[in-house]
């Protein structure tokens, strides 16, 4: 499968996530769009790791080149899980204070 297809797919998912962050104002949906962007980057890393492996395996059949990309995806998932737990706690705290998850209420730093 040509690498451009995977690049195009993950860039489309990333841009959908960006449009979501820019246009929605529900904090939970903004957070979900951030997760979508993280996942598109993960898909891109896996595809590039397999591309690198395909060019390395042509010379050495037993090489494990390219596995680092998949390990980075593993670490990104670890960090994303930690980020989600803290972020959802922040959203719950925000809901408790302003009784809404609309991000337009969070403008106290502006003035």
């Amino acid at each position: 499968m040509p690498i451009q297809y995977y690049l195009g797919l993950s860039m489309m998912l990333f841009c959908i996530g960006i449009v979501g962050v820019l246009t929605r104002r529900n904090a939970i949906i903004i957070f979900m769009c951030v997760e979508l962007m993280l996942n598109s980057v993960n898909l891109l890393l896996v595809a590039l790791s397999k591309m690198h492996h395909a060019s390395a395996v042509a010379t050495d059949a037993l090489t494990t080149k390219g596995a680092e990309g998949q390990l980075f995806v593993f670490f990104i998932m670890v960090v994303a899980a930690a980020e989600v737990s803290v972020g959802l706690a922040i959203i719950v705290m925000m809901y408790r204070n302003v009784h809404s998850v609309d991000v337009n209420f969070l403008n106290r730093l502006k003035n």
Partner: protein
Amino acid sequence: MSPTQIVFWLLSVVALVSALMVLISRNPVNSVLWLILTFFAISGHYLLLNAQFLFVVNLIVYAGAIMVLFLFVIMLMNLNKETEPQKNKWLKLTGAITGGSLLWLLVSIVRSAGDMQGKAAMVKEGNIGLIDNLGKILFNEYVIPFEISSVLFLSAMVGAVVIGKKD
């Protein structure tokens, strides 16, 4: 078209359509369900690329744990109704134009990049994505980042409890 290509296009269409439905649907619960479908499609891509470990981890961690956490928070805050007010049409249009022009910029950069010409990702074969190989590399070369990530988890857990505690 070969079966691999059919599976690729099917998964891509499912991923893109459900990612768009995350944006379009007004109800947050529907957004979470569409996002779970997106994660399933991305997991299918991992399986097509023979990254079996990441396939399982993506299903368990993302589609299982994280999205259930989102659903719990939505249910706890009683947000499962359409509370988001309609807002400025121009702001939506501006967001869509911004995202579209970023996509156009990225695509044009990739199309003109010489490094990517004629390269292909290996599908359905290659054993670097199996847990045997990844585990060996993880515990031989990446032990310290692995241990540091456990400290990160501990601090995130403490942080979530401290932030979420009522005082």
